[in-house]
């Protein structure tokens, strides 16, 4: 058995007091090679995932990067190549073991220099089944054609519990953005974002801004980050179901927990965000406590039926669906955005209304979160 030095524990380094909002804490990372004479290298990656409240409904998504030899860039280790219980969707905390049957001869040759990074992200499960889609499908939106406003169905998928944070995005930039890809100079705004780029191409977070949602991200930036994680953007239908819930919150397989409000207007129900002096999300008002963006999870009493935070307000969220008109059929590539933002009126933060934006737009009101699930249909 050849012991390999454990890689930098990036997740631990980015650990902050609001633990739920950044990468989940990972400790005791160990990597070694259990080479077999006939089958070649067998890389074993062990770590501890110490988040106490993981469950099938509220799992973690774990993704791994590796590099070896003199490689500068880290590569995503596809969860499909891995065995064990510690990659992809992980439903329990504790000690994890990942088996990577040395995927190539290169791994075999350079295994002495292998380095591995492990990161984990909080997710919520959205069980498969029917839901009521109230936004208008078609016309470029969700061109799968699977959905109607009468009744729609989606298979099980997992949505990031929080909007992607500044700390996570800065971590990504340090891994992938040395040439400036994915960075916009307005991200340096301490009031609305808070990522600084040094002359040597490294990035740092303005202290205290780690757990705010990243903004000034284009659709392409969002896709870049999520590809790095092995995730994708949600479709508009996925976003809406995660916000309002399916007809049964435990899904159509068991149908034990009916959704009391499958046509709710907001994640918490039908009350507007500031009804009766109670502030349920971050919209355009200082009275909600936040004149600009708020740290993710600040309104966690008003999560969606599945426990996802901030689907209403804070930053508007990119979806993978595009939008077009007859004039510009398929040409402009407007993308659908959902959820409203800190600059919207309360009614603009609902779970039904969509907006559209050109994908290159880098805006202080735009953010995103990822999905793990079946491929989104083209």
């Amino acid at each position, binding site marked *: 058995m050849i012991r390999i030095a454990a890689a930098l524990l990036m997740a631990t380094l980015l650990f902050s007091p609001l633990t739920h909002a950044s990468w989940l804490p990972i400790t005791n990372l160990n990597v070694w090679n259990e080479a077999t004479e006939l089958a070649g290298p067998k890389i074993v990656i062990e770590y501890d995932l110490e988040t106490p409240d993981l469950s099938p409904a509220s799992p973690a998504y774990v993704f791994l990067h590796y590099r070896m030899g003199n490689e500068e860039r880290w590569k995503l280790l596809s969860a499909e190549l891995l065995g064990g219980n510690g990659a992809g969707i992980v439903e329990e905390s504790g000690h994890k073991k990942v088996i990577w049957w040395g995927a190539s001869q290169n791994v075999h040759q350079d295994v002495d220099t292998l380095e591995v990074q492990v990161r984990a992200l909080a997710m919520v499960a959205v069980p498969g089944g029917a839901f009521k889609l*109230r*936004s*208008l*499908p*078609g*016309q*470029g939106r969700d061109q799968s054609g699977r959905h109607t*406003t*009468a009744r729609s169905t989606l298979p099980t998928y997992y949505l990031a519990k929080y909007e992607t944070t500044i700390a996570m995005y800065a971590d990504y930039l340090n891994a992938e953005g040395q040439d400036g890809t994915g960075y916009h100079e*307005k991200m340096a705004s301490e009031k609305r974002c808070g990522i600084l780029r040094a002359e040597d191409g490294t990035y740092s977070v303005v202290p205290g801004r780690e757990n705010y949602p990243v903004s000034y991200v284009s659709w392409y930036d969002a896709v870049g980050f999520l590809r790095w994680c092995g995730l994708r953007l949600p479709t508009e239908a996925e976003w809406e179901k995660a916000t309002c819930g399916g007809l049964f919150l435990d899904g159509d397989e068991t149908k034990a927990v009916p959704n009391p409000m499958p046509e709710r*207007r907001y994640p918490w129900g039908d009350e*507007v965000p500031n009804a009766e002096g109670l502030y349920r999300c971050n919209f*355009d008002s200082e009275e909600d406590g936040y004149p600009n963006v708020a740290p993710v999870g600040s309104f966690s009493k008003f999560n969606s039926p599945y426990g996802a935070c901030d689907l209403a307000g804070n930053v*508007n969220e990119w979806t993978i669906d595009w939008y*077009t*008109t*007859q*004039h*510009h*059929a*398929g*040409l*402009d590539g*407007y993308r659908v955005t959902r959820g*409203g*933002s*800190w*600059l*919207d*009126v*309360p*009614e*603009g933060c*609902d779970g*039904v*209304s969509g*907006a*559209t*934006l050109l994908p290159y737009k880098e*805006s*202080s*009101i735009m953010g995103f979160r990822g999905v793990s699930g079946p491929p989104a249909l083209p």
Partner: protein
Amino acid sequence: MSTLKRRSFLKSSLGAAATMAALQAGAGVSANDKIIVGVMGLGGRGKSLLASLAKRNDVHIKYLCDCDTRTAGAATEIVMEGLDEKPTFVQDFRTILDDPEVHALICSTSDRWHALATIMACQAGKDVYVEKPQSMSVWDGQQMIAAARKYERIVQVGMQTRSAPYVQSAINYIESGKLGDVMLARVYLMQAGGPEPTAEEQPIPDGLDYDLWCGPSPMLPYRPGRWFQKHWDFYNGALTGDLIHQVDIARLLIGKKAPNSVFSAGGVYRFDDGREQPDTQFSTFEFDKVTMMMEGGFWCPYNHRIVHLPDKSKFPDWQFSATKIEVLGTQGIMYFGRHGGGWEVFEGDGKTRSSKSVASELSEYKWGGIIDLHFDDFFKCIRDRSTPKTDVADGHHSMNLCHLANISNRLGNQKLHWDGEKEEFIDHAEANQLLRAKYRDPWVIPETV
């Protein structure tokens, strides 16, 4: 606001507006003053215009307005990022008209509000930038001109291509006679398209003043989406609503004002989605010894808009240009590009049986570039009170061609004869009934502006 209150508010607004206009008429803006504007309509087009306005240091965007409050956030962000100021958001555009500080209304709503908002803004003493298509009917356009002239207002219509710098050289080339005698102009909107889905009826969402949103059009049950664009009472049609750009340039290039006749062919060939307007429309306008042909179809994926071409440093492949304008003379043919592309003239050589480019002006524009130039012209005109490049009367005469084509289509593609001076069809009462749109009280184009 209840309907009853709104009606009384409308009447009082119109009365007050006339007085205000009398006070403000002719009052220009000094060179050092910022021009104060309110932007009405914050959908896709409104945000495109805001992106241009937010780059200007000679403008103060005091108001953003939309009857759907859910549009406020994205529009506000554009202004805050560009000008570092936060406009006041209002749901009712009459708040803008009632503010004596405001110099101009930018109207970027859908079609149904263009005419009445322009007229009311003129009455309130505001200059107006109104998006195309400027009117829902010939009558709308006539009253818009009347209001602009009566209250001495600048009214610029959003056919931006007139502000492209390559327009005047094209006019000069044609006027020089080098193209020979111009006999034919052809304009195109032949591109990809798709069906327009219609969602189920739903409760009117919080934050939307649906009564105001419908405005002059019928207040049908609420549905999300663009279903309304399939109905004549809401919309001029997806074809003529965009072909107006090309029609306007062609009319400018051939120097004609009104046709003698119109004849349309076509109908709903492709998308059987309940639409009233054609998805395929070929119209012919006869002027004196010049004919204009307008070709529209939403089933041509092999054609592309110039603004979407990846390489704008060369002329588009004219054959596959979705929105080109062609001017054909006895010596050459001019291809003219909308939103960039410039123009190019080809002449034939009978000896070699070949044609070649003999004159051209290349012009490349990125998305929105010509909007900036059009606003340059608008704000210059506000300051010096000169006539804008797309004055409301120019827009009206071009829009009439679209209205005429649609009326021919609605009457079963009849050939109709037109009296351009009286602006009425000759001996055709049924067609003349369509010269006025339907209006929903109180949002009626007034007989006297």
